[in-house]
């Protein structure tokens, strides 16, 4: 069971108050993009053992979307952050590096 803190309303709750929304920081390829990019955007996902970034929604609470960084192996939640960003905040990445040296995920490390 994950314990998440919503960065929008500040509530800390277990995962049943939230809803998972898939991989974080996807770059959208829409009409006019080439087939390979569109296929990657639509179907290809990270599936790491370890550090992972996801979208979550506080659906039974304030209703807002946010991002979470967690470990898929231990279910440790490294942190959550607001959705209005293209990348994880530097202090969160530093915190993850202290706990999981050498981690990388997608274009982040």
């Amino acid at each position, binding site marked *: 069971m994950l314990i998440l803190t919503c960065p*929008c*309303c*500040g509530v800390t709750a277990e995962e049943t*108050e939230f809803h998972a929304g898939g991989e974080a920081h996807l770059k959208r390829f829409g009409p006019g993009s080439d087939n390979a990019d569109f296929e990657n955007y639509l179907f290809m996902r990270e599936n790491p053992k370890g550090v992972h970034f996801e979208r979550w929604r506080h659906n*039974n609470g*304030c209703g807002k979307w946010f991002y979470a960084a967690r470990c898929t192996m231990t279910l440790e939640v490294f942190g959550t952050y607001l959705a209005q960003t293209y990348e994880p905040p530097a202090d969160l990445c530093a915190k993850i590096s202290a706990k999981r040296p050498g981690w990388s995920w997608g274009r982040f490390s």
Partner: protein
Amino acid sequence: MSNLVTALNGASDANGIATITEVPLQGMITLRGDLSKAAIKTAATTAAGVDMPGQSQANMNGASGITWMSTDELLILCPYGDVAANLATMTKALAKTHALAVDVSDARASFTVSGPNARDVMAKLVPVDLAKGSFEPGMFRRTRMAQVAAAFWMTDADTFQIVCFRSVADYVFEVLKIAAQPGSEVDFL
């Protein structure tokens, strides 16, 4: 004129370890907008007659009050008969502000759970720490009750008030009755 009734027509149950009562017709107005804007704050406090609540808080005064629903949403409570007048005043006051005020009184149901075991009963249904000191009157929480969305606050040390969608009023009443069935005290909180 139609006969105005609440979802369960004032149902109540006192056979269990806490008393569950449907709240009579309660005026509720959803107000959405930038809560830091003076116009929004004034519209809310004028309609409810109480100060703005802080994050995750509820300011109540009898059947009137303001609850903090999210960073851009308030639920304003007022007497059922005052909703139309309050809404008209708010809409006028917010004419030049990006905001939304809607009467949701008939789209919601409300219950109280009261008695010394009220904390036990609620704690069986919500993923929230309801220990004394962790949740107290003045605080407000939107969460789920078993399988449906709900919000609640405490009106005194032994009483919770719940707001849920009208369409799930029967479910909430029944699930509260199950959580309060005789002999089911947990005595943990």
